């Protein structure tokens, strides 16, 4: 699988995204190496969430290409991209509040079960077997993320820290190759942030590639292998954390040029 030149799981080339006259992403190119944790940082409005929305298919880019495992995905719909193995979380929690913790994760397995109306309506054995299987799988994930004891609680009753973790669990359930995490530590206290970053590391240790948007620099510097810095939709720097920290253009973007 890891043939020469194919170690990039995601390749973004000359990506442009405009909304009316506003250019949210301009001529953006970068790659994500398979099995790494890559962080996307930048001041507010730099285009980070737009980038995620383009990668995961919520928006089609105005120009440019997104290649996943070598094949273009920029014009596929979100559910198709999910089926290919890209999963995501959201900046503001988008859990299914009306469902239990377990059901949220079970829904994450949706790409693998393709439920049929007739088969479920007549309660055919294959549907029941499938339910049992994904239920077990979902429980396994809940154990992994440490929410197994709350499996039956409505998702909306969890504290924010656990909701964020649950979203990551739900994203894991589709068995993705790449997970896009949109500010997993936003709004979390220090303990919760620690739990979240250990979890991200543990997921990465399973061989899953992670693309991460985050504002918490401590988290970024701790867990990411590579960082790409955006400002006004453009890439202003890219490299390992220690290099980014001392890059004058990055410092300028964040603090202004006095």
């Amino acid at each position, binding site marked *: 699988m890891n043939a020469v030149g194919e170690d990039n799981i995601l390749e973004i080339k000359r990506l442009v995204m405009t909304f009316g006259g506003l250019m949210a992403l301009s001529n953006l190119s970068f790659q994500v190496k398979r099995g790494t944790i890559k962080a996307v940082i930048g001041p507010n409005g730099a285009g980070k969430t737009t980038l995620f929305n383009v990668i995961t298919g919520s928006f089609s880019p105005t120009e440019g290409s997104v290649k996943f495992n070598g094949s273009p995905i920029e014009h596929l719909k979100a559910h198709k991209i999910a089926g290919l193995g890209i999963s995501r979380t959201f900046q503001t929690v988008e859990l299914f509040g009306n469902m239990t913790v377990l059901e949220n994760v079970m*829904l994450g397995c*949706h790409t693998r079960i393709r*439920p049929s*109306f007739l088969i479920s*309506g007549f309660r055919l054995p294959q549907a029941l077997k499938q339910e049992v299987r994904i239920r077990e799988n979902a429980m396994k994930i809940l154990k992994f993320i440490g929410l197994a004891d709350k499996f039956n609680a409505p998702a909306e009753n969890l504290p924010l820290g656990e909701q964020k973790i649950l979203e990551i669990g739900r994203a894991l359930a*589709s068995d993705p190759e790449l997970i896009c995490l949109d500010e997993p530590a936003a709004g979390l206290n220090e303990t919760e942030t620690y739990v979240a970053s250990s979890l991200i590391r543990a997921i990465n240790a399973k061989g899953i590639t992670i693309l991460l948007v985050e504002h918490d620099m401590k988290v970024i510097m701790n867990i990411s292998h590579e960082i790409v810095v955006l400002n006004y939709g453009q890439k202003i720097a890219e490299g390992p954390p220690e290099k980014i920290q001392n890059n004058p253009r990055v410092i300028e973007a964040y603090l202004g040029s006095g």
Partner: protein
Amino acid sequence: MLRIAKLPIALFALFIIVFPWIIRQIPAVDNYADIMIFAGIYSLITIGLSLLMGYAGQISIGHAAFYGIGAYTSAILTAHYGLNPWMCMFIGMTTSGVVAVLVGAPSLKLKGHYLAMATLAFGIIVYIIFNEETSWTGGPDGMSGIPGLNLFGFYFDSVERYYYLVWIVVFAVFIFTVNVIQSGTGRALRAIHASEPAASAMGVDISRFKILVFVYSAVLASLAGSLYAHYLNFINPSTFDLFFSIKLLIMIALGGMHNIWGAIIGAVIITFLNYEWLHYFEEFEVIVYGAILLLVTIFLPKGLVGVPEIIKGWFRE
């Protein structure tokens, strides 16, 4: 987990079985079996609509049209062409399903409440067709001569027999729908209702599921229409007007749209109000329906099925 308890379903089945026997003992209410037939027919429509509104979060103001397509397909093909009624029922359901795809697909691919507008217009168009195509439908005078139903020589020719036929169908549809709700399909529908961005990011094909449910609800409405035509042996367009579509929405709002039981409870109560208890109001009947809708939305947003929860809440305090 969303589990629909089995005990109430068993009690429901028992109630269906003994209801005709109970009312036979009370002369004052001996026409209630007849009303329950209509309640059953409406329940078929509201079960589908409750799935569409309560679970998929879409509104249809045109289900009277699918109800009418079922009724007129059965009526025309049996009365004019002498085809087998069961086959006509099936043809009606297929027709409604295809029409539902044509009406629903363009609007369900968009976000927002475009389906409500599309179905509103669709309902009015179909109503005009029923009125104007006199050579087929008999126009505003309606058409008669629709045969009754029989199965291998067993004729559903008494109120009680037809009652059992309708409610067995309702019960089967109810169980089928409960199974769907408790499966991966139902989970996907509730996910769409809770958060469309998250559902599609998890691989749920949102428009496919919405169209699927819309088609299912249209097919059920068509089945209900066929059962209606074969019971009354006569139909006219006024049964399938816009107000009936709205009445269906009132049934669901009153019963509670986030719960499949609400569909049946709402249908039964509104049917009894309609045929029995609201006669004193005569033309002011409409005001009563308006008042019901208003009061339910303000005080019982979860409908009558939400009442036990409210009472439990009082005791906890």
